């Protein structure tokens, strides 16, 4: 599958509040913990070999489950599959929690739900649709859609 690699690499170089060295372990059997520079930019988690300019890889932070693991670690899992669970070891419990919160809040779908909530509430409190002033009230992406499901198996809320 083709993708705009150069543009994504350029994105990975943007300044980010969440960038730190930590241990990272891939999901496959035999994968070992390696020291990586992990960086959160928009809804992607980039990881670099320390002191390298181009990231090794990028993880899209949508449709994933982020949870705390033992000690000072957290994991990101996709499709509830063990073969798609990435482990991250932070320097402290505090740092670990901060990363979990940041990753959850970075998800586009999470932000969209927040937007819809605020839109609904502002309308209820003031009688006005706050998106009208920006001329975007009819945009499909800001509507409450029927496509959203809240079944327990659906991890889209993360």
């Amino acid at each position, binding site marked *: *599958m083709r*993708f*705009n*690699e*150069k*543009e*994504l*690499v*350029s*994105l*990975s170089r943007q300044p980010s509040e969440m960038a730190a060295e930590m241990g990272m372990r891939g999901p496959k059997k035999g994968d070992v913990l390696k020291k990586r520079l992990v960086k959160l930019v*928009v*809804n*992607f988690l980039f990881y670099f070999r320390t002191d390298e300019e*181009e990231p090794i*890889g*990028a*993880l*899209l932070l949508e*449709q994933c489950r982020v949870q705390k693991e033992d000690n000072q670690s957290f994991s990101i899992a*996709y499709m509830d599959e063990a073969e*798609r669970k990435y482990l991250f070891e932070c320097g402290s419990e505090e740092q670990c929690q901060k990363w979990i*919160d940041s990753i959850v*809040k970075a998800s*586009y*779908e*999470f*932000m969209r*739900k*927040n937007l*819809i*909530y*605020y839109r*609904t*509430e*502002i*309308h*209820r*409190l*003031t*009688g*006005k649709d*706050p998106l009208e*002033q*920006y*001329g*975007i009230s009819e*945009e*499909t*992406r800001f509507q*409450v859609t*029927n*496509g*959203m499901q*809240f079944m*327990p198996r*659906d991890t*889209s*809320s*993360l």
Partner: protein
Amino acid sequence: MKLHEKILTHFLSCTSPVDKEGYLYKKKERTATYHRRWFVLKANLLFYQERPADRHLLGVIVLEGCTVTRSKSDGQFAFSLVFDRPGLKTYRFAAVDHQTQESWVKTLLLASHCYLSLLVRDLGRQYEEAKQQQGCGESFHSSSGSVLQQSTTNFSLLVQNPTAVVREGRSSSASSVLQAPSLPTNVVAKRSPKLWPRRNAHVTPLNGPMPLYGEWPLVGFDPLQEFSKLHDYYGLEVKKAREEWLRRRPAEKEHSDKDLIDLG
């Protein structure tokens, strides 16, 4: 750089909303020819394949750090995705008609994570202010009017959307605060949620006091389990309306104090 494809294809096929899809012609730079592709826009990702039913994805474009421009020089109904930094690409597209072109241009302009982030922050501010307005709606506040205007102006300056109508106006809550104090009840919308089109009650959070930004939404919450809370929450409106009605009734008639219907 490795982009974990399975994660992306899973995201494409899952139940999160499709923001736009349709055929567009995509220009192949090497041969300067246009090929018809089926595009699916989800969040800040633009996927493309040959046909809608295809399992095989041809590619994806991450929509961060780019602008959308209409290109008259590229022919009819053409537009481009321009990644502004040196050495980066420009993707060229053509639509079949003006309406399709306009629709895609507008949607792509609003598709980035950065844009959504700004918009959510702005609305978060407006929400906090609207809550405060409602809390002290009975008294006269002259300072909050200017604060509200400032927050809306800040965001509109950041929006570079040529097709959006950016109006610098005060929100209604600001103007009602500056009117006579007897009007604050108009600030609260008395309509039940179901009268507002396209609104889905299941998306509204259900716990009593409003959660702070960042604490909402609840991970994996099930609206069906919380329905009694949803019911109570919207019932507050009914309760308020009823109290007002009772208050407004003339006090002389004694029987007006009793309920007309015995609710037991």
